[in-house]
C-alpha cells in the first residue's frame, strides 16, 4: 500500500529547506567576509601601501566630499525647517540648535554619510574590482606575485577608515550650518541661542559615538563592496558583465541594510 505524505509535512520540509539554505549561505558569507577583512586589514601595514592608500583616500574621500556636504547642507536645512515649527508649538524654538546638532552628530551624520559614500564610492569599488576579476587582471596580479588583496582591497579599506570619520565631521558641520540657515536666517530664531545650545548640549560622548559609528560603517561598506567585487566570478546566478552589475547592486543594497542594522546595534551599546 502506498504511503501518502501529508501536505503539511511537505510544506514543513520545504520551509526548512529554503530557510536552512538561506541561513547556511548567510553564515558562510559572513564568515568569508570576516576572513577577507582580517586578511586585508593585516596587509594595510605592509610596505609600499602608502601611495595606494593616498590615491584611494582621494577617490573615496576627497571626491565624495562635495556630494556629502551638499546632502549635509540640505539635511540640516530640512531639519531646521521641520523642527522649528514642531518646537514652536511647545514654545521651545530655543532648543533648535540642540536637537539639530545632536540628531546630526549621533545619528544622521554617520548614517547618511555612509549611505552617500556607499552610493558613490562603494559601487565603484565593487564594479572596478569585479571588472578586474572577470578580465583576469586579478589572476594577472597573482601571477606577478602581487597579492590582489593587498594591492586592491587593503588600500580601499584603509582609505575608507580614514575618509568616513572625516566626511562625517564635514557632514555634521555643514548640517548644523544648514539648520542655522533655515532656523535662524529664514525663520528668525535667535542665532546666539542656536549656537549656544549647540555648544552646551553636544558632549564629547556624542562626538565619540558618531566617530565610532563612522568607523564601523567604513569597515562594513569597504569590506562588503570589495568582497562582492572580488568574488564576482563565484556568483551562481550570472557571469561576465552581468555578474559585475549584480555584484555592484548587491554591494550597495547589502551595505545600506548593514549600515542601518549596525547603527541600531552600535547605538544600543553606546546608550
Amino acid at each position: 500500500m502506498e504511503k501518502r505524505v501529508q501536505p503539511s509535512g511537505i510544506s514543513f520540509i520545504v520551509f526548512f529547506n529554503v530557510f536552512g539554505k538561506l541561513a547556511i549561505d548567510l553564515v558562510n558569507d559572513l564568515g568569508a567576509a570576516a576572513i577577507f577583512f582580517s586578511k586585508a586589514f593585516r596587509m594595510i601595514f605592509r610596505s609600499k601601501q602608502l601611495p595606494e592608500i593616498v590615491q584611494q583616500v582621494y577617490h573615496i574621500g576627497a571626491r565624495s566630499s562635495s556630494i556629502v556636504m551638499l546632502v549635509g547642507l540640505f539635511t540640516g536645512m530640512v531639519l531646521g525647517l521641520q523642527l522649528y515649527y514642531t518646537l514652536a508649538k511647545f514654545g521651545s524654538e530655543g532648543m533648535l540648535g540642540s536637537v539639530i546638532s545632536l540628531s546630526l552628530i549621533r545619528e544622521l551624520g554617520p548614517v547618511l554619510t555612509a549611505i552617500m559614500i556607499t552610493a558613490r564610492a562603494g559601487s565603484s569599488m565593487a564594479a572596478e574590482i569585479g571588472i578586474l576579476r572577470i578580465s583576469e587582471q586579478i589572476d594577472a596580479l597573482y601571477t606577478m606575485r602581487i597579492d590582489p588583496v593587498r594591492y586592491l582591497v587593503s588600500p580601499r579599506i584603509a582609505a575608507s577608515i580614514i575618509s568616513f570619520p572625516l566626511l562625517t565631521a564635514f557632514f555634521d558641520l555643514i548640517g548644523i550650518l544648514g539648520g542655522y540657515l533655515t532656523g535662524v536666517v529664514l525663520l528668525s530664531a535667535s542665532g546666539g541661542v542656536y549656537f549656544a545650545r549647540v555648544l552646551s548640549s553636544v558632549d564629547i560622548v556624542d562626538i565619540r559615538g558618531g566617530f565610532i559609528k563612522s568607523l564601523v560603517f567604513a569597515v562594513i561598506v569597504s569590506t562588503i563592496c570589495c568582497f562582492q567585487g572580488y568574488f564576482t566570478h563565484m556568483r551562481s546566478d550570472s557571469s561576465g558583465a552581468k555578474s559585475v552589475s549584480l555584484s555592484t547592486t548587491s554591494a550597495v543594497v547589502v551595505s545600506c541594510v548593514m549600515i542601518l542594522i549596525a547603527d541600531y546595534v552600535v547605538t544600543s551599546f553606546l546608550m
Partner: protein
Amino acid sequence: METPLIEFRDVTKRFGGLTVLDRVNLKIYENQITTIMGKSGAGKSVMLKHIIGLLSPDAGTILFSGRPINKMKMGEWDQYRSQISYLFQHNALFDSLTVFDNIALPLRQTTVMSPKEIEKKVMARIEQTELTEAAGKYPTELSGGMQKRVALARALVTDPKIVLFDEPTTGQDPIRKNAILSTTAHYRKKFGFTAVLVSHDIPDVFFISDRIILLWEGGVAFQGPYEESTRLDHPMAEEFLRSLEGFQDELTGLLSKQMFRARYASTLNQGQAEKAVTALLFSVEFDLLTEALGPLAATEVLKALGEYIHTNLGSVGGFSARHSIGQILAILPYTDIHEAKQLVENFGKGLQKEVLSNIQALTKANIGATACFEIYVYAGMTEAHSNDDIDRIIEKARANQEIIATHRCDSKGGEI
C-alpha cells in the same frame, strides 16, 4: 636521463561533474619551447594555471625540478613562483595604467629596486619590444598586436625562467601571428627562458616548438618532437591536427607541410623519379633579420620571399612549403639539376630586382620600419630520388647552399 623542469604525474582536475584533466602525465624540459595543443575545453589553459598555482590538482602531483610543488614551504613556493611569468590570452593589462606603468608594476610591487633602476630596466624591455612610442599611452589606445607586446614585455621584465603563453596569437593576422611566434622563439634564445605555449597556429607554431603535447579527451595523446607527431596514428591526428593545418600556409600562400608531404610522395611514386626531380632549399637568416628589423618587418620579408617563390616556381610546375621559420623547400618535378641551376640563377636575379630592391620601401610602407638592414637569400639544390625522404634531401640541399640574392643599404636607407 635529463630531469624535466616541470612534470605532471597523474594529475586530475574536475570542475563540478566535469573531468577536464584525467590522470595526465607529461614532461616539460628546460630551455625548450613546448606547445600544448588540443580542442577547445581540452584543459590547455587549465594546465598552465596549474603550473603557476592559480589552480591546484584534485589528484596527482606537479613537480618542479623533481620537487612536488604542493610540498614546498612558503619561501620555496615564493621562489618557485618568482621564476614564472604568465602571458594571458587577452593580455590582462591594467587599463588605468600606462604602458610604462603596466610593465613596471611587478618590479615596483615585488622588488626593492630603486625608481631609477626600474625605469632603466623597463625602458630596455620597451625598446626590445618596439614600444618606445607607446610608453606613455594607455592599453586601450594601442592595437591588439601592440597590447600583446606590452603583455610580453611585462612577462619578461622580471627575467623569468619559465614563461607560460596562453594562446598568444589569438585574433592576430597571419603576419602578426608569425611575428609573435618568431618573437617568442627569438626572445627564448636571447633571454634563455623555458617557454610553454598554448596555440593552434599550425604550421607556424611547429617551426618554433621543440616539443608538442597533444591533449585528447582529458589525457595526453602525444608528447614529443613535431616530426614524431606527423607519424601519429591516433584519432586526434585526423580529426584535429590535419583539419587545423589545412592546405595552404596562411602567411606565404605556399603548401602546408601536410599537403607538401602528400605531393612529394605522389611525385616520387608516380614514376616521376625516373625522370628528373630537383629539390631546392631557400633560406634567409631570419634571426639576424629579426634582430635588425624587429619581428614584424622580418616576417614581412619572409612573406614577400614566399610569395615570389610560389608565383615563379609554380609556373614551371614546382611546389613548395615552409620547412622551418626561415627555410622554404621547393620541388621541381620536371627539371634536372642543370636546368635547375639555370632556373635558380634567373630566379635570383629576378628576386633581387623585383623583390629585394623594393623591400626597404615595402617594410616602410607596410609597418613603418625604416632601419637599414641586409638580407642574404641562399639557395641549395639536389636531385631527389624515390627512396629519399624529405629530411635527407634537405640535408643534401643545405650542403650546397649559396647566396643567390642580396639586399644591403647605406645608413640613410638607400640601397647599395
